[in-house]
């Protein structure tokens, strides 16, 4: 009996020790894949009961927010601003209407895979409800305006001999690349169509989309002075882009708006079309480096009811 117990114990030890443990390198690689994914930028939330949904007009009003940078681009007081509106400032007085998001809200990185976290507060103790109003509803609107960037590097296959007939050893297959899941930003590169144009040119049809649920504003607008209420209508849904590739020389990218490499979203979707000169005699893979520059506007709201204090 004792021998059986000993054998079972040894077997158990073997099973436990035999389970393959991920090496540090593998774990890091898994992490970094997740960091550069996602469709969110700045996430905002009202902290529970701050403010409460019903308050007396003699109470303090405190709006407390949780802010998280769930994308990969750093935010700070120089490129991110919060605006509080939706209330009558002749009734709720002394409430700041704008503040910076935070002094620093780091984007996701290998050292900080969750991204930066901060809180921000707006408060007042002056509520002046008109005399014969028993209550008043207010919908507090918190709008964030911030600068952001999307960086995508889909790996594409370039084959100068695509149209050659005969047995050719090809290092890769020219095909469209899907980049679903986002790149850690509210504007995402959703896919790249690759087309070889003869032996020495390649064309890319890059699909981008606004996946964050908010509003894209062109990088020319200011998050401090224009967003959210003074944005020129022509600045909505504009993204500036930069496209680059190793082993190729950019010929041209379109569209252009006012002479700059910019594209406009229609129904939250946009397209960039680029052609590159290529050299070489054999197929190879290379990253297509795409950077998108834009401002982003998003909002949350909270309903409160201000009740006249009895007596």
């Amino acid at each position, binding site marked *: 009996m004792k021998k059986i117990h000993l054998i079972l114990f040894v077997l158990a030890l073997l099973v436990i020790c035999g389970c393959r443990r991920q090496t540090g390198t593998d774990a890091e690689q898994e992490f970094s894949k997740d960091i550069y994914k996602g469709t969110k930028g700045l996430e905002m939330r009202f902290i529970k009961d701050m403010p*409460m949904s*019903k*308050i*007396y007009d003699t109470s303090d009003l405190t709006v407390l927010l949780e802010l998280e940078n769930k994308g990969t681009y750093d935010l700070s007081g120089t490129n991110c601003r919060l*605006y509080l*509106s*939706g*209330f*009558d400032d*002749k*009734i709720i007085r002394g409430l700041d209407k704008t503040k910076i998001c935070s002094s620093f809200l780091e984007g996701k990185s290998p050292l900080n895979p969750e991204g930066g976290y901060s809180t921000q507060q707006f408060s007042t103790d002056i509520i*002046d*409800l*008109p*005399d*014969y*109003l*028993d*209550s*008043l*509803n*207010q*919908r507090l*609107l918190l*709008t964030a305006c911030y600068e952001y960037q999307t960086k995508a590097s889909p790996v594409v296959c370039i084959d100068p001999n695509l149209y050659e007939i005969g047995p050719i050893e090809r290092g890769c297959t020219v095909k469209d690349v899907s980049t679903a899941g986002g790149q850690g930003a509210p504007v995402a590169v959703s896919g790249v169509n690759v087309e070889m144009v003869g032996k020495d040119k390649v064309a890319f049809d890059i699909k981008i989309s606004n996946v964050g*649920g*908010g*509003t894209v504003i062109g990088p020319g607008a200011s998050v401090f002075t224009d967003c*959210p*209420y*003074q*944005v020129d*209508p022509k600045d*909505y849904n504009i993204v500036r882009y930069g496209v680059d590739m190793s082993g190729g020389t950019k010929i041209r990218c379109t569209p252009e708006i006012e002479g700059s490499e910019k594209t406009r979203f229609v129904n939250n979707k946009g397209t960039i079309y680029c052609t590159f000169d290529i050299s070489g005699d054999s197929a190879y893979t290379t990253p297509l480096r795409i950077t998108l520059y834009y401002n982003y*506007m*998003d*909002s*949350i*709201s909270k309903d409160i*009811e201000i*009740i*006249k204090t*009895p*007596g």
Partner: protein
Amino acid sequence: MKKILILLVIGFLILVTGCGRTTPNLEPELIEYHKGTQGLEMNFVRNLPPDEISEGSEFIIGLELRNKGAYDIENGEISVSGYDQSKIQINEHGKYFNIEGKKPGFPEGGYEIINFRGKNIDFPKIKETDPARFKIITRYDYQTEAGAEVCINPDIYSHVKTKEKICEPKEIILSDGQGAPVAVTKIQQEAVPFENRIRIKFNIYMENKGEGDIKDNITLDEVRLANVPITCTKNNIELEEDEKIECYTEILAGAGAYLTSLSIKLDYGYISRIGKIVQIRKQ
């Protein structure tokens, strides 16, 4: 030992689930005083006067007055009339009264009983019964304090594309009254751009929803947007001719929409009437 253990576990479970901590309900309670279309409610006290009185007897006309509105009545006047003074003698033709309206700490409003003493002093000899008609009239000053939530949208071209919508300016129907017989029933809004501002016009409609009559005209005491008075085209309103008043304000264009209050105060005299027929019976 096992039994003791089971008992301990059960006892522990009961303790844990039974000790529910009840937090006090800290949520503010809304009590609406400015609701309803009644002002002064007037009724005869039961059997005062009775339906029948004997020839030559005394009787009391008892009146219950309740202020069902949100305004205090001061120096209200109540009078008895409509009867044949050669047959009926009333000790006083009129009295004054003060009754508080609904307010915090006084949610039902004030209550008062007023009595008039009467006596039958003459009776036709050939009749078995003779009707006496009593008309009770009250005259009092009242006030309607109406407040409504209105949406102010300085961005009338809808350039601003926030995901969340605050509100939309729209016609407001006020069907519940404001704790007074004259009620504001509808508010319409029109916005017109004017240089870098928006001019907003409010059309305010009102009706006599009580069972009495307005004495003379209604005076528009004030109209305020939040706590700021705004200008109106008329201060003196005859309800038969003027179904609405127009009020204006201007705001800066380009900011976000918000909800605010439009407060309207109306002053007027009001007249209420009730009546009763009492049969005087030959003794």
